[in-house]
């Protein structure tokens, strides 16, 4: 597999088109206040203009909080859009602590310059983005949604009843 093909694996190109979770409306993305237990974050990569607004809600009592919903609206390269889509798939299956751990795990893989391979058991399809870590200029693209989710999660947990 050429380095280009390892960067753009089929699953990445498919996610970039499918955009799971990419259902946040323009109106919602522009809102400036949210219900308790919800957080929203806008991230922009000023280098290439890639943008994402991600909204996340949590539910359940403290200690057993789950991700109730994760939606985003974005515009950008296939890496950034696929990454947001893959993150959305993961978020439906984990609780808040697990999501925080996965974000950290993903960051470690992406910053590894090709030395750490993501575990598909943990990261699901997002493990296919491991190859991005060999392209330093693209790491930010892959991290965009995850950085937004990290901040939205922090807000959501802080305001949850």
């Amino acid at each position: 597999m050429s380095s280009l093909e390892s960067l753009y694996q089929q699953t990445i190109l498919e996610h970039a088109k499918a955009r799971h979770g990419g259902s946040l409306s323009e109106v919602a993305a522009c809102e400036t206040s949210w219900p308790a237990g919800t957080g929203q974050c806008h991230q922009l990569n000023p280098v290439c203009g890639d943008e994402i607004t991600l909204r996340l809600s949590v539910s359940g009592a403290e200690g057993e909080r789950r991700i109730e919903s994760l939606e985003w609206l974005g515009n950008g390269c296939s890496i950034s859009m696929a990454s947001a889509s893959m993150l959305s798939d993961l978020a439906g299956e984990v609780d808040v602590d697990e999501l925080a751990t996965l974000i950290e795990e993903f960051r470690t893989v992406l910053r590894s310059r090709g030395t750490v391979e993501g575990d598909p058991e943990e990261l699901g399809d997002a493990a296919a983005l491991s190859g991005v870590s060999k392209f330093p200029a693209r790491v930010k693209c892959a991290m965009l949604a995850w950085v937004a989710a990290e901040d939205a999660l922090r807000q959501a947990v802080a305001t949850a009843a």
Partner: protein
Amino acid sequence: MNSGVPLTDVEVLRIRNDFPLLAHPVNGRELVYLDSGATSQNPLSVLEAEQEFYEQRNSAVHRGAHTLAAHATLAFEDARATVAQFVGAREEEIVWTSNATAGLNLLAYAFSNASVGEVAPEARRFALGPGDEIVVTEMEHHANLVPWQELCRRTGATLRHIPLTDEGTLDLEEAARVIGPRTKVLAFTHVSNVLGTINPVPELVGLAHAAGALVVLDACQSAPHLPLDVKALDVDFAVFSGHKMLGPTGIGALYGRQELLDALPPVTTGGSMITTVTMDHSGYLPAPQRFEAGTQPVSQAIAMAAAARYLSETGMDRIHAREGVLAQRMLEGLSGIPGIRTLGPAAGVERAALVSFDVDGVHAHDVGQYLDAQGIAVRVGHHCAQPLHRRYGLSASTRASAYLYTTEGEVDAFLEGVAGVRGFFGVK
């Protein structure tokens, strides 16, 4: 304007031998360097000029009485004369800056300094305040926009702009309406770094001068690529960068009409720019020294002059003519590829040898990555011109920019690369 005979393919191949970097493979492929609009490569004569300075003349300029210091000062001032001649200016009218951005900021801060506190009588003509207007254009690089936004914020002046047409040119009818008695400064680019548009400098200068406004020309994309004569264009100030015209980074120049530069308040103050200093007060040297406080980038200035000599010896008219041929080849090639939308003037219109384009269904970053895997270096993103991209409904584009060392074969390799993009990303 295109009076020169284009450089021939044989001449271009000979030119390429002067550029060591062009022979270095990238990703196992022959390098196709189409990012000279961002930064150009350096010929051996430029690299050698810098090395020769450090090996034989390195010393402090404009201070010290020893032989080396005299040699260094001479070389430094010769470099100024060379660069001045390159753009049709007198040597006293060229101020070294670290790049064009620094030159524009120098001007904006000098105007600021003329607007607050105790101001020398000759500097009052540069003062700005509420009711005054600065005019820029919608196609500006952020370097020729943000410093003016900040100047307006500091002084209370208003920033206005000349809009773009759908064809990628300035709306001159609108320009005639925007530029008026309140206009104090008109700042615009000679050649758009995204559209390749060559702006009608005489018309715009005519409008500005009729309104009594000063003209600042961003010559970053013109000084390297076409014969530039700041006197003939009658601009009041101009800026350009060394690294876009075969020189090193860290050096650029600000041109200003002498009587203006001598009246303009200094910005960076300190050593080497003063006459008499007491504990309370200082007097300042005339230009260019009044703007060159502290130790200057001497070897870079000398290398930039070597770059100017290389370009002059090659012939700016011939470079410009050659680039005109390459521009049309790129533009025509791109317009034959399905799903490609080029920005800027259509084929047949004179333009710079840079073409920005959008690939339907594929983000610019992905286009650039795909081309890079084939050794083709292009620029992707907003090219420091977000308002321009917004105007055309885009957040980013891909830009290929050629120079005197670009071959037709490279343009063809690039076109072939672009033709493969949508297939690779599965876009129909």
